[in-house]
C-alpha cells in the first residue's frame, strides 16, 4: 500500500471515465442508423425519405382521367373560351382512386359532381370572394332567372339544367329548346 501514488484516486476516476466513453462510442455507433445525417440543427435518417415515397397516391391528376375519358377530356379542354378549362377533373369529381382501380370502375364519379352544392360552393356570391370571380346571387337580378331559381333552389341539380359543367358559359345553353332556359338566355342579352 505504501507504493501507491497520492493521485491513485484520480487515475482510477480517469480510467473509469475512459471506459464509459468507449462504451458510449460503441453504443452510439450501434444505435446510429447507417443513413444518419448530422447537419447543423438538422439531423435525421436519410432512408426515411425513401420510405415516405412509398405512400400510395389518391389523386391522379387530369392525366389519369384522360386514359379512359379521352373524348370528354378533349371537349373539356378543346374550347378556348371555356371558363372551367383550367380546372382539374378531381376538383369536382373527387379522387380517381375512389372511382377506378386497375383500369376498372369501382364507383360513380359523376354523382358527387352533380349536386348544386358543388356549383354553389364556388359560385354563390359571398363578400370574401374576389370581385372578378363569377358569382351568382340568391336573388337573381334577371326576373325570369329569379323565378326559375326560386322554385328549385337550393335542392337538386338546378344549375346543370342550363349550364354544362364542362363548359359553363351561359350562352352555350345545354337545353336551348327548353322554354325556361331560352327565356333566361334572352333576358341576359
Amino acid at each position, binding site marked *: 500500500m505504501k507504493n501507491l501514488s497520492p493521485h491513485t484516486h484520480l487515475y482510477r476516476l480517469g480510467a473509469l471515465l475512459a471506459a464509459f466513453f468507449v462504451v458510449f462510442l460503441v453504443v452510439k455507433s450501434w444505435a446510429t442508423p447507417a443513413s*444518419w*445525417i*448530422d*447537419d*447543423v*440543427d*438538422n*439531423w*435525421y*435518417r*436519410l432512408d*426515411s*425519405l425513401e*420510405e*415516405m*415515397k*412509398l*405512400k*400510395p*397516391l*389518391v*389523386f*391522379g*391528376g387530369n392525366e389519369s382521367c384522360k386514359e379512359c375519358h379521352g373524348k370528354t377530356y378533349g371537349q373539356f379542354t378543346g374550347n378556348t373560351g371555356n371558363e372551367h378549362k*383550367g*380546372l*382539374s377533373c*378531381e*376538383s369536382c369529381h*373527387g*379522387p380517381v382512386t*375512389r372511382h377506378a382501380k386497375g383500369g376498372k370502375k369501382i364507383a360513380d364519379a359523376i354523382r358527387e359532381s352533380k349536386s348544386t352544392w358543388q356549383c354553389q*360552393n*364556388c359560385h*354563390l356570391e*359571398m*363578400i*370574401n*370572394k*374576389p370581385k372578378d*370571380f363569377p358569382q351568382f346571387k340568391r336573388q337573381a337580378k334577371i326576373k325570369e332567372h329569379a323565378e326559375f331559381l326560386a322554385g328549385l333552389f337550393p335542392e337538386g341539380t338546378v344549375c346543370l339544367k342550363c349550364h354544362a359543367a364542362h363548359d359553363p358559359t351561359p350562352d352555350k345553353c345545354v337545353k336551348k329548346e327548353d322554354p325556361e332556359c331560352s327565356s333566361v338566355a334572352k333576358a341576359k342579352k
Partner: protein
Amino acid sequence: MNKHPMTDGQEEKTGTRREFLRNVLAGTIPATVLMVYGPGVLAHREPSELPRGEGIPKAEHYWIYVININNCIGCGNCVRACKAENEVPDKTFRTWVERYIISGEGVHVESPRGALEGFREINAGVRQRAVKSYTVPKMCNHCHHPPCVKVCPVGATFKSPEGFVLVDWEYCIGCAFCVQACPYGARFINPKEHKADKCTWCYHRVKAGKLPACVTVCPNKARLFGDRWDAEAEVTKVFLEDNWLVLKPHLTTDPTCYYVGLGREVI
C-alpha cells in the same frame, strides 16, 4: 523594519499587469479568429438556402409554395383533398382556410371545421358593416430555419435536401415539442398514430412527378407549387413582382410559403 504592505513587491505587480494583458490578448485573438473562420461559421447557412453538408444528397429542385389570396374563393377543395390524400383524422387539419372579416369593430377570423365544407354566407348585418373580407389558406410554411426541427429531441423531424420539412414516424416519440415550437400552429399530434403530423407538401406525390393534392384541386389557381430554380415556373414569376409576403417574418423562420396579396391583418 517592515516594508509597507502597499509598496511591497511593486515591480512584481507591474509584471503581473503586463502578463495579465498578454494573457487576455492570447485568449481573445484566437477566440475571435475561431469565431470568424471556425467550424461553426463554415456550417452556417444564409437565409433562403437549402440544407447542405456532409452526406446530404445534392438537391435537384428547390420546391416552394405560393398562395395567392387574390384568387382564393374559400371553397375548401384543398382541405377536402388533403384529408383524402393523407388520411388526416377527423378534427385535425394539415391545411385549413381562414376567413377574415374586417369591419370598424375589428378583425374577425373564423375557420369553421377548417373550411372542410367551405364557408357560409355572412349574415346581412355583419355584411353591411364589413369593410373587406377575404380567405387565407394556411398550412406548414416549410421554413428555412424551422423552429420545430431545432426542438426535436430524437432527430425525427427535419428539413430535407429539397426543402420539405418532414417527420420520420419511425423515430417520432410523440413528445409534441415541435407542436409547441411551430409559430404557425401547423403541427398536431395524430390522434390515431400518436405521432407529430403536419403538411408534407405531399412528398410522395411530388416525388412521383405530381403536384400536391391541394394544388391539384384548387379551382382558381390560389395555390401554386413549383421549383424556385425553374425560371419558367409560375412560382418563380411571383418574385419578379415585389408583391409577396411571408407569415410572421419577425420570427426569422424564413418560410418558403409565399403569400401574394396578403392583408396586413394576417401577418
